[in-house]
């Protein structure tokens, strides 16, 4: 995990452009979406089209131009 710095980096979260501090923790991205990383039933995350295993969430930080997808199961047919 790289330490957070004052530098801001562009990322995309669920299709929306955002600016976050360099080294922004993935768990903070989840909290921004009002998801508790410790109790996130039916939620999964991919960064740059690679799925991040739930047990690895704590170890992941964002890098410049990362594309993050945070999904959850919903009612569907």
């Amino acid at each position, binding site marked *: 995990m790289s330490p957070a710095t004052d530098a801001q980096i562009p990322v995309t979260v669920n299709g929306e452009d955002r600016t976050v501090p360099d080294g922004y923790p993935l768990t903070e991205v989840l909290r921004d979406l009002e998801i508790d990383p410790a109790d996130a039933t039916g939620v*999964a995350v991919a960064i740059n089209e690679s799925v991040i295993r739930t047990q690895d969430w704590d170890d992941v930080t964002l890098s410049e131009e990362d594309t993050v997808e945070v*999904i959850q199961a919903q*009612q569907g047919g």
Partner: protein
Amino acid sequence: MADEVHTNGSVVAETDDRLEIGEYTFSSRLIVGTSRYPNPQVMLEALEATGTELVTVAIRRVNVEDPAPESHLDLLQKGGYQVLPNTAGCYTAREAVLVARLAREALDTDLIKLEVIGDDETLMPDVEQLLKAAKTLIDDGFTVLAYANDDPITCRKLADMGCAAVMPLGSPIGSGMGIVNPYNLRIIREEVPDTPLIVDAGIGTASDATTAMELGYDGILLNTAIAEAQHPVEMAHAMRLAVAAGRRAHRAGRIPRRLYAQASSPTSGQVQVDA
């Protein structure tokens, strides 16, 4: 399959007539969607009335503007249902593969209902992308239930590459048009004798489900026909009975169609009055 033989000699398919999809076994031949119900309570009552064990869910981005909408996943899991995530809304193999992998992580299941659609108007599968996605997901260890056109060639290709179930449409998704091409479905059954076939999409009412089962299909996947019925729980009951009736009729073997009448009553000894 060990049938129950009644004392009068009749043979009846009984509870060991199970639907096998990959490593999974189900006593119900109905797979039911969880969308469009008037409210969660009606959804739960309807699901129970169908007798289903396998219910579909969608995978969607958590909405940044409106975070953490209620998923009702907890209700489904409490109800003991096996969840079947779908890739609805995916237009490319790349999107579908990513959604399937996310679903596997989110729901801890290798089951995936693979949908790769070509456009919003028809919601018809994009066959090129569908086949590509299916191959990738099968190689990745998924149990793939592939939503397909009612095209015998596509369905055979999906079965041959190792899909656990192939699911041709009866008619467009949500249309309620029923089984619009029973002849194609029949050919698909003949072309794909050993892979479970499920009619997915287009079922409008109970007789549509029965028709599909009479054609020798292994199961039915539906959502809107129950969820948007005037009385969803009542329709759920009807669908359960319809699938069971169609299954039994298929196993019983229907009589051939004849162009001309054939009297049921004895053709000799009729009373005749001279003109």
